[in-house]
């Protein structure tokens, strides 16, 4: 009954990339890099069309589970109609699609309820669609060997990694391991820190912005600054949203403890950017240095200097 475990052949599987809300608004470079990476790996990759909001589980699951299932069911029905495997790189989007599909497949009466609502919009969900995380596509469908073969320029960088909460849902040995192994395949040296598994704070932001910024974001940034890493590697757009906002708030409002990392200059980079750089693409090709709160210029010069 799992939504993503069945073995498929990556070469003839069609993927529909679900962008989510943050990536097109704040991370155009990651969007472009993802497409470059998919092209390089020979995936049949395109945007999933006519998407709606993923429907954030943290809010809707508490308020009204039936609304949550119905709204998320729309995306699943659309993917099913388009004949694509729904791929998310945002953990929030992935977990909401994954859990909805699991719940609907397990409980036929809920599936009937969702279909009753979807019928009003001339839609129908059978439950044959597959939902995958971008990491699952890279690791399970493409495979580490193919990724290693595609790497032209191993990066000589030290990074802290942040995978996010929902990617741990299947266990610490699944996606966190995929993430680490892919990063290491790109030649990245991972720095272990006690705050690796700590939440970015986004889930708490609407409830308690102060705690979420000053406890979660601040601790991570302070440590990254102290360790002098080249970047913080992420996969989830939601985490980027929170970090990006966190940098701005910490710079603007200051820190009551007086330990604020002044001029925080550790860039937050997406896994697809790291892969694109390792595959030999130039940073300009995916606009790596534009539209960012922390400039990755140091990282770029380090990558380009090490040719």
């Amino acid at each position: 009954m799992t939504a993503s475990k069945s073995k498929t052949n990556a070469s003839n599987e069609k993927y529909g990339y679900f962008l989510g809300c943050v990536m097109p608004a704040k991370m155009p470079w990651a969007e472009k890099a993802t497409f470059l990476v998919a092209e390089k790996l020979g995936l049949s990759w395109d945007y999933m069309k006519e998407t709606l909001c993923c429907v954030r589980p943290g809010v809707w699951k508490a308020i009204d589970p039936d609304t949550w299932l119905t709204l998320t069911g729309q995306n699943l029905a659309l993917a099913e109609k388009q004949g694509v495997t729904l791929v998310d790189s945002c953990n929030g989007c992935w977990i909401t699609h994954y859990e909805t599909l699991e719940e609907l497949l397990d409980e036929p009466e809920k599936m009937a309820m969702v279909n009753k609502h979807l019928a009003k919009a001339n839609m129908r969900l059978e439950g044959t669609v597959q939902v995958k995380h971008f990491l699952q596509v890279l690791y399970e469908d493409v495979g580490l060997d193919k990724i290693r073969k595609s790497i032209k320029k191993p990066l000589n960088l030290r990074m802290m990694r942040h995978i996010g909460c929902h990617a741990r849902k299947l266990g610490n040995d699944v996606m966190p391991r995929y993430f680490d192994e892919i990063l290491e395949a790109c030649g990245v040296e991972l720095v272990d820190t006690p705050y690796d598994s700590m939440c970015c704070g986004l889930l708490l932001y609407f409830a308690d912005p102060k705690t979420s910024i000053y406890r979660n974001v601040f601790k991570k940034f302070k440590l990254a600054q102290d360790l002098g890493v080249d970047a913080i590697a992420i996969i989830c757009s939601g985490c980027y949203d929170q970090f990006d906002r966190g940098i701005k708030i910490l710079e603007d409002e200051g820190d009551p403890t007086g330990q604020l990392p002044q001029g925080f200059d550790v860039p937050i980079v997406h896994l697809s950017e790291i892969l694109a750089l390792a595959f030999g693409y130039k940073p300009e090709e995916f606009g790596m240095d534009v539209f960012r709160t922390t400039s990755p210029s140091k990282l770029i010069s380090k990558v380009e200097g090490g040719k």
Partner: protein
Amino acid sequence: MALKVKVSKRLSAPVLVPIANENVTENVIIHNPEFCTGCMQCMVGCAYSHFKTFDINYALLYVNDNPATPGSWVNANCSHCVYPMCLAACPREAIYKDHLGIVRISPLKCIGCGICAQTCPIAVPRLDNTKKIYVKCDLCNGEYPNCVKMCSTNALQLLPRREAFDYVKKLRGV
């Protein structure tokens, strides 16, 4: 009523509270710190389901930094004990067990003295600032608890009591 209380640190020997009936809930909430990321979704979910707010100060379970190991989290949630100390200590007999074994505080009898919070080993009952009485986890009235539903990493689980007991023993290495 004079209480004969036998205190032992062993997991297998609970503290006896003669005035409590031995009804217990079938399931109990268990927290595994290995998976917890401190996102506090459980607290948000709890606050919403009981008080219709996302303010975590209203939550009836608590996630805190573990001072011993930075980056890990400790959780305090009600176990609905077989022999609840809060029930034994309440001077107004406001705390009772219902037919499901859920330990509840009667809002009509509670005077907000806070003895329950002081006697609970993990201080679960908290003061409700508007009503000036103590409130605690009601296990979502026996339904699937919202905190477990909302947990983003499966760190919180609802397990049958026996299984939960073995799970905790394993976690603690007992």
